[in-house]
C-alpha cells in the first residue's frame, strides 16, 4: 500500500515536473496566441451573441439584455413573406447560373493554356488573365457598366456599327443582366481559377501522354482520355465546395452591377439584409435571415466536406 502511494506521488511529481518544464519552454508560444485568441473572441465569438436578436424585438436603446424575447416570431413572418422567397430564389438562381456557365470556364482555360508551347505567349496570356482578380469589384463593376452603357459604351458603339444603329440596354434588361453578371465573374476570376487546374494538369505523369501517343491518340484525344480523367478529382472537389456555398452571392459584385430596372432579379439575401438591416434598422428581422442563411451554409459546407472526403479522400479540413 505504501509502495503504491509512493508510486502515485512519484507519478504526480513527474507530471508536475513535466508541466513545469513544458511551460518553461513553451509559455512564449501561448503568449503569442493571446492577441490572436483575443481577436477571435472580440470579432468572431462576441458577434454570435448578436444572434439572439433574431429571437427578440430588438430595440437599439435597450440592447440585447433589455429587449423582449419573442421566440420564432420573425422566422414565422419571414417564411410567410413572398419577399423572402423571392430573394432566396434570386440567390439560388444566380448561383446556379454561375455554376453552369462559369464553373467549366477555368477548367477549359487551364486545358487550353496547357496546350500552348510558346513560353512567351503563354506567360503574357497568363499575366493578363490573372490581373483582373486583383481589381476591386468597384473597378470591374464600373468598367462593365461603362463599356455596356447604351449611350457612350464601346460595346454598343461596335454593335450599332455592325447592325446599323441598333443598341442594347444590357444592364437594364432582365434578360441580359444575369449574363453580364456571369461575364463579370468570369472576367475577374477565370484566370485565377485556372491556376489550380493548371497545377493539377502539371502533376500528370508524362508517361500517360506517351502511352496515349503510341496508341495513336491525337492532342484532342489525349485531352479527353488523359487530361480530363486525371484532373477529375480536382474538378469534383471544387464542384462540391462550390455547391456548399450556394447561398452566398458576392455582395460587392451585386452592389456594383445592380440598378432599379433589374431589382426584381438582382436582389439577393445579402443585399436585402444590408438594405433592410443597416439602412432601415430592422435588426431582428434581418438577423433572422442571417441565422437562416448561416445555418444552411454550415450544413451545406459540412455536407460538401463530408462528400468530398468520401469520394476523393480529401476535404478542406
Amino acid at each position: 500500500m505504501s509502495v503504491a502511494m509512493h508510486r502515485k506521488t512519484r507519478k504526480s511529481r513527474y507530471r508536475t515536473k513535466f508541466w513545469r518544464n513544458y511551460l518553461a519552454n513553451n509559455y512564449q508560444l501561448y503568449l503569442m496566441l493571446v492577441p490572436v485568441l483575443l481577436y477571435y473572441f472580440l470579432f468572431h465569438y462576441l458577434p454570435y451573441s448578436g444572434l439572439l436578436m433574431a429571437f427578440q424585438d430588438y430595440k437599439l436603446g435597450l440592447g440585447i439584455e433589455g429587449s423582449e424575447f419573442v421566440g420564432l416570431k420573425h422566422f414565422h413572418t419571414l417564411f410567410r413573406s413572398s419577399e423572402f422567397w423571392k430573394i432566396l430564389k434570386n440567390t439560388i438562381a444566380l448561383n446556379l447560373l454561375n455554376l453552369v456557365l462559369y464553373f467549366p470556364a477555368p477548367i477549359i482555360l487551364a486545358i487550353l493554356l496547357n496546350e500552348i508551347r510558346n513560353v512567351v505567349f503563354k506567360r503574357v496570356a497568363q499575366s493578363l488573365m490573372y490581373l483582373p482578380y486583383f481589381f476591386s469589384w468597384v473597378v470591374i463593376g464600373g468598367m462593365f457598366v461603362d463599356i455596356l452603357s447604351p449611350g457612350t459604351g464601346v460595346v454598343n458603339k461596335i454593335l450599332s456599327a455592325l447592325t446599323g444603329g441598333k443598341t442594347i440596354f444590357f444592364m437594364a434588361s432582365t434578360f441580359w443582366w444575369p449574363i453580364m453578371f456571369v461575364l463579370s465573374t468570369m472576367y475577374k476570376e477565370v484566370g485565377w481559377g485556372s491556376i489550380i487546374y493548371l497545377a493539377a494538369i502539371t502533376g500528370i505523369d508524362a508517361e500517360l501522354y506517351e502511352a496515349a501517343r503510341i496508341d495513336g491518340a491525337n492532342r484532342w484525344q489525349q485531352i479527353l482520355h488523359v487530361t480530363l480523367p486525371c484532373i477529375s478529382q480536382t474538378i469534383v472537389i471544387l464542384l462540391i465546395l462550390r455547391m456548399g456555398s450556394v447561398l452566398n452571392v458576392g455582395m460587392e459584385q451585386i452592389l456594383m452591377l445592380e440598378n432599379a430596372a433589374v431589382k426584381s432579379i438582382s436582389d439577393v439575401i445579402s443585399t436585402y439584409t444590408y438594405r433592410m438591416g443597416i439602412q432601415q434598422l430592422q435588426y431582428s428581422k434581418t438577423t433572422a435571415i442571417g441565422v437562416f442563411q448561416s445555418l444552411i451554409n454550415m450544413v451545406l459546407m459540412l455536407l460538401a466536406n463530408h462528400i468530398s472526403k468520401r469520394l476523393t479522400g480529401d476535404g478542406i479540413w
Partner: protein
Amino acid sequence: MKVKERISDRIWLVFVHVFVALVVLLMTLPFINILALSFSGETAVIQGRVTFWPIDFTLNTYERVFTESQILLALRNTVWLTLVGTVINVVLTVLAAYPLAKRRLKGRNVFLALITFTMIFYAGIIPHYINIKNLKLLDSFWSLWLSGALSTYNMIILKTFFQSLPESLEESAQIDGASPIRILVQIVLPLSKAALATIALFYAVGWWNSYFNNMLYINKAELTTLQIRLKELLSLTNSNLFQNADASEQNKIVEESVKAVSIVIATVPILIVYPFLQKYFVKGVMIGSIKG
C-alpha cells in the same frame, strides 16, 4: 496515318492559340478603352470617337479629378488604411501561424477547432455591425483594422509554410536554450521573407480594394476611402445609364471621362505591385490547396 495526325494536331494548336489570344484580347480591351477615354479630349469623347486609342490627347480630366473630387483625400486615407492594416495583419498572422504550426503545442487542436468554426459558421452582417457599434469603433479606421486584423485563410497558408520548414533548423537552437520568440525572430522569419512578402502583398491589395466594410462601419466624409469615393463618382453617371432627361448632354459625357480617370487612378497601384504579386501567388494558391 502519321501525316494525318500531324495535320489534325496542327489545326487544333492553331485553334487553341487563336482562341486564347481572343480571350486575352477581350479581357484587355475594356481596360484599354477606359485608358483611352481617360486621356482623350472632351470633344472626342462627346462625339463618341474614342475606342481603343486616345484622341486629342490631354491630361485635363486627370487635373480636374485631382483638384475637384476629394480623390486626394481618399487616396491619402487609403494609403494610411493599407499601411497600418497590412502591418497589423502580418504581425498577427505570424503570431497565430507560428505557435499553431508546432505539433507539440498542447491545446493546439482546441485552438484550431475554435478558429475553424468561425469559418464554417458566420454570425452575419447585422450581429457584426452591432458588435462594432457596441465596441464603440464605428467611424474610425480601428473598426476596419481590428475586425480585419487577421484572415484565417492566410493564417492557414502561413502555418502550412512554417510546417514545411525542416525541424532540424530549430532543434539545435532549442538545445542551446533559445526561447521560441528568439527562434522565430532569428531563424524562422529570415527564412520566410518570400512567404511574408506574398502574404503582405495579398493583405495590402485587400485593403486597397476594400469597400463593403468601409461603407458599413465608416460614415465620416473625412475618412472616405478610395473605393467608396470611386463608387460615388461612378454613380454620378447613373443618370447616363438611364439616359436621364435632366442631365445635359455635355455633362453626361464629361462625367464619362471623369469615370474613366477614377477607374485608372484606382487600378494603377495594383498594376505597380502586380509583377511582385505574380512572382509568388501561384505558389501561394498551391500551398493553399494543400490542407494545413
